[in-house]
């Protein structure tokens, strides 16, 4: 039913549930599993380069850890995970990546990890669901 699955990761508890569901589906259908971690926006209107560099380095380190944990989790359940990281607007990136990669299913969480994410959560999830070129699974 699904040959190629994409799961969106952001390190939140919700995205861990999304990963668990995606791994389960990939195992069940023998599908290829990819993850996309969108690092989100850097501090808007920064005052120093240092602020941007430090924020970028923190995001890189954070998402490297997320990727490592996701790979280990999937491997422990007999699934190989192919992780990718990007910078920018999460909804745009997920939709675009799903199109380019010709995925059959996008799995995403219903909750992000920051207060700001929660405020525009509906917008992000709605945007992905509305514009994704394939089926989407929203994990609560």
């Amino acid at each position, binding site marked *: 039913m699904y040959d190629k699955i994409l799961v969106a990761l952001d390190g939140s508890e919700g995205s861990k549930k999304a990963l668990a569901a995606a791994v389960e589906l990939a195992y069940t259908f023998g599908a290829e599993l990819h993850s996309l971690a969108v690092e989100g926006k850097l*501090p808007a209107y920064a*005052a120093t*380069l240092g602020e941007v560099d430090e924020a970028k380095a923190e995001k890189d380190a954070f998402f490297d850890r997320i990727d490592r944990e996701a790979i280990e989790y999937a491997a422990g359940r007999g699934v190989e995970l192919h992780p990718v990281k990007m910078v920018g607007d999460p909804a745009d990136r997920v939709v675009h990546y799903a199109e380019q990669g010709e995925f059959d299913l996008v799995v995403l969480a219903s909750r992000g990890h920051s207060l*700001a994410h929660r405020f525009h959560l509906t917008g992000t999830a709605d945007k992905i669901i509305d514009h994704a070129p394939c089926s989407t699974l929203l994990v609560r």
Partner: protein
Amino acid sequence: MTELWIAVGIALIALLASIISVEFGLSIAIVEIVLGVVAANFFGLESASWVDFLAAFGAIVLTFLAGAEVDTHLLRTEFKGSLLVGGVSFVAPFVTALLFSHYAAGWSWRAAEICGVALSTTSLAVVYAVLVETGLNRRRVGKLLMSATFVTDFGTALALSLLFVKPTGWIIPFVAVSALLIWLLPKISPWFFRRYGDRVIEPEIKLVFFLLFLLMALGKLSASHAVLPAFLVGLAASQLYAGHDLERQRLRVVAFAFLTPVFFIRSGMNVSLTALGANLGLLVALFGVKVAAKLGAVLPLARSFVGRDSVFFTLLMSTGLTFGTISSLYGYQAGIIDKAQFSLLVTVVVASAVIPTAIAQRWFRPNTEEEVDGMTNGRLVHAEGDD
């Protein structure tokens, strides 16, 4: 209000600003300025002499960091284009804002000069964040933007130091010590960092602070401003810091944790909402002057250098934040501009960080659709540069 309660208020604002910054992905500087405005206008938070002193030092540390962040290799690579674009990006808004504020708004010549300097700036950090986020920092448009911004920043520092000099006997030692430090620092720093660096007592940060305080003291004696030598000393140290990330990070930690919050919060505290309300028309006009001057002068040049990305390029060259705030605070603390003029300038500067950036990203962002061409496992996928 006792000084200790002022300290409590500023520390609380700095803490709240950090939390808001993290949660909403906003620059800490803008949040600190806005909270400073709110605290002074609605809660009556006052300043103290030590706050003003630390704010002035924070401005010099920010200037040093801006110099230390200059990529000299990039500047050499794009020297001709950056000199031309960056030079025009400084001169055009400087002259336009100076003439407008003097003839149309009736500001004194000296106040108009502060206006010209504050509105001539381009924010390197605002530009950089957009470029890193889009991956454009690896393309020519991004490289030229960065290097041109270095030049504009240098023009701002130069103008701020030279325009307000009053010839005194101290100007000679000020210039001599500045020149000596710029020449000597790259020579002695490698040895100093090797011998004394990487210790929790931070001798290398103390060296930087000593040099900056010395420049401030000599600058004050010569009735000038230490912003130019601080920028150049930072520039002289940039190669050294490029190879010492840990030392640079420690300096940033000290600056971001204590000095720059005081600078930005104090800047916000100086803003009078009443004065802004009474001068809304002038506020809009000054913002228009800055952006129109940048667009009018930089856009034709940008067309010849970056073609279809020229509007995006020019809008980002229209941003301002740190140097604009530094210039305004200097003018206010030196008695060159009054509270209403300061309020107008800082508000225009903050608006110029936000509005042109938002427009550039929303409607003129260069195409980076090729970003997902290479779906390589585990690595950050970016636009492929044309370098």
